[in-house]
């Protein structure tokens, strides 16, 4: 699978959980790997690239960390959108 396609799957996976469950990195890696047949390492690498450019972000709440889709406010602050 192309990296871009895999990243779209990752994005969709995170979006589907929005407001329902706080996803940890591991949840995403396991879930997307099972859905796509890609190796956990490949999913992790693709996900990390998304985090590095602000397509996904680490979040923190309820005493633990998770991965989420960033808010517009966050992206504006990071200069990712004008």
């Amino acid at each position, binding site marked *: 699978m192309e990296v871009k396609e895999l990243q779209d799957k990752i994005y969709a996976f995170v979006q589907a959980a929005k407001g329902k469950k706080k996803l*940890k990195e591991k949840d995403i890696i396991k879930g997307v790997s099972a859905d796509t047949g890609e190796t956990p390492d490949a999913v992790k690498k693709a996900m990390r690239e998304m*985090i*590095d450019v602000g397509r996904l972000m680490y979040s923190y*709440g309820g005493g633990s*960390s998770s991965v*989420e889709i960033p808010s517009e406010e966050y992206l504006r*602050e990071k200069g990712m959108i004008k």
Partner: protein
Amino acid sequence: MKKYETPLLDELEKGPWPSFVKEMKTAAQKSEMANDELGQLEKSYKDRRGYWKHGGIVGVLGYGGGVIGRYSSLPNEFPGVAHFHTVRINQPSGMFYKTDALRTILDLWDEYGSGLTNMHGSTGDMVMLGCRTEALEPFFAEVTSRGWDLGGSGSALRTPACCLGKARCEWANIDTMDICNHLTQMYQDYLHRPAWPYKFKFKVAGCAVDCVASIARADCSIIGTWKGKIAVDQAAVKDYAKGGMDIQAEIVDMCPTGCMSYDGGELKIDDANCSRCMHCISKMTKALKGTGEKGASILIGSKAPIVVGSLLSWVIVPFMKMEPPYTEFTELVEKIWEWWDDNAKPRERIGELIEMKGMRSFLEAIGVEPQAQQVFEPRKDPFFFWKDEDLNGNK
């Protein structure tokens, strides 16, 4: 700048101990943020409650740790603390500083933050208190361009910490600062990107005196020890006696294993029965010294009481050589992390997971054999598991 009346906090400028109120007022002369922090704290003193919201979602791009979001619940009344985030800067191992290097950080912090710090946070980082969200990225860029980086937070590896070890202590059995720095550098990814069920802390102590409280505050405690005898310098023993030390009462009678004797001349140690607790060595440092093979005991699991009670770390590997590049240790730790990551519930620390799954499951998963040094005493009840492989050969 608004001038706050602080009659309650002013009471804490009196007395001989250094005053944090003085520090806050000093910072408030230069910073609106520190000034509003002072104002809000006075209100907390009046109302006997804090005015901070839960941490928020802030950080630097790509990292999930190092910044802890903090927002005032009274942003209109105290706009300077509307955002008042914490930035953790990873301390150099041992917390030695060249003054110029530290001044660079201070200058940056005056520019981008409130001018208030904690030297240091409980885990060991330099803690920069009070940063606005939009200042995080430029501050981070400035800090990293000068060779510093952020520490850990969230469900990640926390900034490793150590005692000063060989730098200035004759009791250090291992090179604590090197081990600490090695782990910090080797596991930057785990430090900055929270990938685990919960936090994980390393603390490295050079000996069993444990000046870094590793046995109480680290998921993995690395505590220096030795295997050989205690060398006794009898001339120095005599000097201690001459200097007024009651060797029988202060040393021999306080030895927990009763392995010492003293006839007024020679101090004798039955080394086979010494537990290497450090009492005698710490009191007669000129006369006594551990010899032979040096290394560390690896203990796992300590934490504060949330949720079902505090834990002290448990001995897992009684003795391990600790020499660069510390491969035996890092291979063990990576096995520990894998088992923990595979099995833990959210917010479950390694010590809690071991209690839940049983020490045997843990030891088997990481490939460590049972040893009497791991327990104070064997079990008292007659209930125990047998696995098929235990029955083979009728062991």
